[in-house]
């Protein structure tokens, strides 16, 4: 892989296991990817693929029985997977911001949003109380909340879902992090609000050139927001490609299956949705060899025998022994 600049976030062989009665089960299996400075990497997959676990693993917010058991995570040259809990706390929020999925539960209901912003700002930046307040008001304005001084004193339940998510974004960015991880930031919102939030994220990304890791199951969101995309399947990386290439010429059969199974406004009534037979294996039920092989129309003997490694080719990477040819998907 030829890169002109060193990646901002470099994840190699990240492995997460879950402690279940009877033994250890792998949730993430040697997941590797990187994010360049100023880039938006989309992480896409269905539920159970491990994409949320990936985000949580990077900032060490895994809830037991989940545990990070292998791999390295490097942020701007420093290894963050070996930091003490205290050092990690300053990374969280300070160098990596996190946007959670559900704005209802990710804000403290008994503290005003202004106070929550100030707390985060003061925890990471050496600012006085009044300076922090000014910065907080600034951020409320930047994320598009009208009358920031009024909103400052409000409680989360007094705001709508879209406004709450804007506050969550402000919280993620107020300490000027290098990287923002957004875990399904618009899934809990209506379509019209979703478009607003995506636009906000994009504007903020352009203004500050912060790198972004956008985790979602929605291919439409990926198509509009991501520069490069990593497709996860059953805890492994299936494919990493620039976004145009992913949609127009996917390499991994799962990627193409997923694209074809997604209904779009252009799909008219006569067209049948292409379905992938079967279902993604749950934790602990991953078949030997390639995780996708029981459902893959191209599966052959080697697919069942060996786990395909992540193979780099030009600008993309994929783990498949028999990738799709460069025909229009």
């Amino acid at each position: 892989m030829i890169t002109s600049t060193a990646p901002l976030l470099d994840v190699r062989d990240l492995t997460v296991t879950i402690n279940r009665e009877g033994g250890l089960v792998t949730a993430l299996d040697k997941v590797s990817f990187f994010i360049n400075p100023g880039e938006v990497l989309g992480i896409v997959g269905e539920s159970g693929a491990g994409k949320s676990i990936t985000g949580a693993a990077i900032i060490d917010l895994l809830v037991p029985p989940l545990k990070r058991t292998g791999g390295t995570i490097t942020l701007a040259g420093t290894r963050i997977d070996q930091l003490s809990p205290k050092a990690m706390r300053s990374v969280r929020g300070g160098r990596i911001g996190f946007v959670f999925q559900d704005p209802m539960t990710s804000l403290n209901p008994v503290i005003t949003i202004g106070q929550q912003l100030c707390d985060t700002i003061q925890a990471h930046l050496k600012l006085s109380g009044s300076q922090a307040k000014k910065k907080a008001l600034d951020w409320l304005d930047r994320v598009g909340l009208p009358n920031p001084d009024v909103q400052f004193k409000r409680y989360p339940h007094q705001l709508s879902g879209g406004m709450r998510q804007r506050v969550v974004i402000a919280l993620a960015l107020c300490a000027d992090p290098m990287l923002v991880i957004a875990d399904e930031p618009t899934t809990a919102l209506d379509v019209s609000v979703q478009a607003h939030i995506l636009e906000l994220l994009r504007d903020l990304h352009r203004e500050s050139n912060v790198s972004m890791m956008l985790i979602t199951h929605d291919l439409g969101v990926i198509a509009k927001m991501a520069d490069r995309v990593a497709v996860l399947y059953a805890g492994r990386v299936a494919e990493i490609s620039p976004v145009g290439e992913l949609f127009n010429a996917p390499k991994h059969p799962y990627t193409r299956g997923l694209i074809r199974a997604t209904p779009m406004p252009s799909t008219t009534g006569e067209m049948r949705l292409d379905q992938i037979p079967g279902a993604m294996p749950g934790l602990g039920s991953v078949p030997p060899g390639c995780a996708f092989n029981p459902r893959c129309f191209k599966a052959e003997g080697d697919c069942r025998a060996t786990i395909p490694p992540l193979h780099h080719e030009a600008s993309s990477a994929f783990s498949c022994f028999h990738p799709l040819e460069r025909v229009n998907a």
Partner: protein
Amino acid sequence: MTPVVNTPAIARRRSRGGKLLHAMRRAPGPTLCAVVIFALLIYAFVVPLFSLNPFEFSGMSVLDSFIPPAWMADGSADFPLGTDDQGRNLITAMAYGMRTSIIVGFLSVTIGLVLGGSLGLIAGFVGGKVDAFIMRVADVQLAYPALLLAMIIDGAARAVLGAERSVGTAMAIVVMSIGIAFWVQYARTIRSSVMIERDQDYVSAARITGRSNLSIIVLHILPNVMAPVLVIATINLGIAIITEATLSFLGIGIPVTSPSLGTLIRNGNNFLQSGEWWISVWPCLTLVLFVVSVNILGDHLRDVYNPRLRGRS
């Protein structure tokens, strides 16, 4: 139509026996308690089959009274735990006492469960004014200490039925008073569970299919709300036994011919000062052992049945 590739069953299926063994291995404390409870139950119900009721028959000799436990001076191997003021073998006396206590405890819990459970089901499912009424009655009752309530009910029954009552009637009255004193807990717990379940889609699906309200309550909702209530019942068993013991201690429970552990303790209390400690200490210890074991087991069952904790194995 392409058949679905069946994903492997999500929950591992064990045989019933396998599940129990596994559960026991993982929780040694509660398992030990279960064993203790079982042993005490055998003691309470089997020993009386082989010996006469020391409170009804005068087979004892007053000469045997106040014999201390066997390992002390003046002790005798015939009476391993000693005798009381009337010469009764404490082992036999306690077996009979334990039996009465357990029966009363069990029956009163059942009455409370049935009464509280039904009222809670109705209140939770019907809602509105009916719910408000039942809950207000419950609130009012909670203002009274349960013990006081039990005494009031017992006293009222006495007044109505007169001083002459058979043992059976007396037991029934005690059981009823304790049962009525404790129904509120069951009602409240079941009610909140019912209110959650009745909004679930499977209830709506049953309604659309055409089921009557009553059959929905009994067939759909009841199985889903029973578990936490049963756990409360287990814990309440200990409370019921102690309540009965307290009533007997105060002299208003079951008559002396069919005593409970409470009566024994009360009886022995008179002699504590003069040094014959064993007459009340043994029944006391047995009572404590039983109640603590039931509580620990009940606590464990509550954790096991808590769906929120289930994922974190």
